[in-house]
């Protein structure tokens, strides 16, 4: 614990000693509140209900650099490249974007410059309860780089925006990027995020993404968590939806990050909203993948639909905690949640905890969770047709994932994900 405390101390010192002249007053206040929250509580321990199954302290013991330098993808093979994806490509290096990117009606700006705009005050950091979430608090107190993506009113972005995060882990690094997505009234954007890590020293990413979906707007957000094994990712994703908006989230944790913790929180802040949350985690080795989702139904006539599927190999562990909260005013809510897991090894473990809290009386809600293994009959059927065990298992794992992979609206991304599944399965069984 001593080294963990020392990382904590480093952050406390970093906060006290940092340059603050760049920030607006509102941002200074925001940071200050968040810092108080973090310094009071520190990193979460397993005594917190939210972290009961996930002990993060072993991942915080490194001697991290807290202010990483520049990263470059130059001349490297880019594993985040998605073949045949026709998209606006944006590359962030250690969270940094060098200059504005302007697509018709969509502006992507470095966070630092964007935050000079007072208007952002009504979006940035407004919905995250930093009292409750220590990593989000730490990020809010100390984030340096990131981007703001803003889609103007009535803009239908013709192509997806593909954001490649390049991180430099040639030395141990703790990095805290921050993204703000604003889809103004009646706009529509698709965002695909993926990761490239250079170097093989421990990398800890403490990311916060906020997404504001205005009235009648649509955001499709693909989070392709394909980082290599030296990566530890804590990702807090806060979404706010206004009347008649549509939000689709696809969180796919594929090879090979040692540790992934996702918090995906939806505040349904208007009537008639629709939200789809699709998750897939395929973990092997000693990977730990943890997904916490919260869907907050606060107004009537909203639909939320969540489907998370997990495939676990080797000694992998997964945690799923899904909370649907239906407030008293949220009549005619439709809220569904499903978490299905298959274990392909008897050493793999899943802790699945679906929760419904309903305070309205006229609602349709369901939740469920299963943990099983591959269907032996199906496996035999395929083998009896000459399909080898490995290929048969692959087909069945793909079939199992199908409910979530076929929801991907961008064919190139779907194909890319399916290839990653095949590759991961092959690696797991070729050892």
């Amino acid at each position, binding site marked *: 614990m001593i080294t963990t405390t020392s990382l904590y101390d480093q952050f406390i010192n970093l906060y006290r000693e940092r340059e603050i002249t760049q920030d607006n007053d509102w941002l200074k206040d925001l940071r200050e509140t968040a810092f108080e929250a973090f310094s009071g509580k520190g990193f979460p321990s397993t005594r917190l209900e939210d972290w009961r199954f996930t002990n993060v302290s072993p991942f915080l013991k490194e001697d991290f650099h807290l202010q990483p330098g520049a990263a470059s993808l130059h001349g490297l093979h880019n594993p985040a490249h998605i073949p045949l994806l026709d998209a606006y490509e944006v590359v962030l290096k250690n969270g940094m974007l060098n200059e504005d990117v302007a697509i018709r009606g969509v502006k992507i700006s470095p966070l630092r410059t964007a935050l000079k705009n007072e208007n952002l005050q009504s979006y940035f950091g407004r919905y995250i309860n930093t009292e409750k979430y220590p990593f989000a608090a730490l990020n809010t107190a100390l984030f340096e780089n990131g981007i703001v993506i803003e889609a103007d009113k009535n803009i239908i972005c013709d192509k997806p925006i593909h954001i490649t995060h390049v991180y430099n882990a040639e030395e141990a690094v703790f990095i805290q990027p921050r993204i703000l997505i604003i889809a103004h009234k009646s706009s529509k954007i698709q965002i695909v995020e993926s990761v490239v890590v250079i170097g093989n020293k421990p990398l800890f990413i403490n990311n916060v993404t906020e997404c504001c979906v205005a009235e009648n707007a649509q955001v499709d957000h693909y989070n392709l968590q394909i980082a290599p094994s030296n990566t530890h990712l804590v990702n807090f994703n806060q979404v706010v939806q206004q009347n008649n908006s549509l939000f689709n989230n696809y969180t796919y944790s594929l090879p090979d990050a040692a540790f992934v913790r996702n918090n995906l929180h939806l505040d349904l802040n208007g009537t008639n909203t629709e939200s789809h949350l699709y998750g897939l985690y395929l973990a092997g080795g000693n990977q730990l993948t943890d997904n916490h989702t919260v869907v907050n139904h606060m107004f009537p006539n909203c639909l939320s639909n969540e489907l998370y599927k997990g495939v676990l190999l080797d000694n992998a562990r997964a945690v799923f905690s899904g909370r649907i909260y239906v407030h008293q005013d949220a009549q005619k809510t439709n809220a569904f949640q499903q978490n299905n897991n298959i274990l392909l090894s008897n050493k793999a473990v899943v802790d699945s905890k679906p929760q419904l809290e309903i305070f309205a009386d006229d609602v349709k809600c369901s939740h469920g969770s299963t943990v099983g293994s591959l*269907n*032996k*009959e*199906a496996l*035999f*059927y*395929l*083998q*009896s*047709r*000459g*399909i*080898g*065990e490995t*290929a*048969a298992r692959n*087909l*069945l794992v*793909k*079939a*199992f*994932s*199908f*409910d979530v992979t076929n929801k991907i609206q961008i064919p190139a991304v779907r194909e890319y994900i399916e290839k990653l599944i095949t590759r991961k399965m092959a690696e797991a069984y070729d050892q």
Partner: protein
Amino acid sequence: MLSIKNLQAKVEDKQILKGINLQVNAGEVHAIMGPNGSGKSSLASVLTGRENFEVTGGEVLFDGKDLLEFSPENRAREGLFLAFQYPIEIPGVSNINFLRTALNEIRAYHNEPPLEAKEFLRLTREKQKLVEFDAKLTNRSLNEGFSGGEKKRNEIFQLAMLNPKLSILDETDSGLDIDALRIVSNGVNKLRSEKNAFIVITHYQRLLEYIVPDFVHVLYDGRIVKSGAKELALELEEKGYDWIKEPVTTASV
């Protein structure tokens, strides 16, 4: 082609096959009949390598090779095919993708290159026509939403695609209406040749009017207790199984 000698097998500590002897040569059709629970499907399971069956004695040679040594997939690649009594549904695995994978894995086993997409499509169309199976296969999961009869026809379609040496049809006729029965039988008859063989498991002489067997065997309590020519099927239909009690010591073929 297939030579079964004194085959014994158990499942969950229950002895099911108690010494099966059977010789099947290329070009032959054998019918296996017998009351419910006598072990017909179990025999098919043991031959195809279903994992919960444990062979406790005897041997099976397939074209001179020890069949029981092979994994289920290699048995299929060696040319063995089972049309299941109860074909299962596999949601998420498309019919076409499944067939292409199967066909190409079998080809790879014989050092043949994968089929070109065009050639595969042509073959699919040809064989669908042969077994008059017009279900839409692309974008549809394996057997998902198929009626009982369609599932059986899909089994015969797969048989036609994979072109095995020895096919075992486990009650492919049950659940088929009379037209489907004729169509499936026609398909099988067109596939029959001097190079392949069929074992047809059935309860009904009716099927054997369409697929005329060279031999009929009666399986009873884990043994083949009687073998004869196709007329035996008629006799069984009339008299039932009660008159056959004592096992014959060796199959009479």
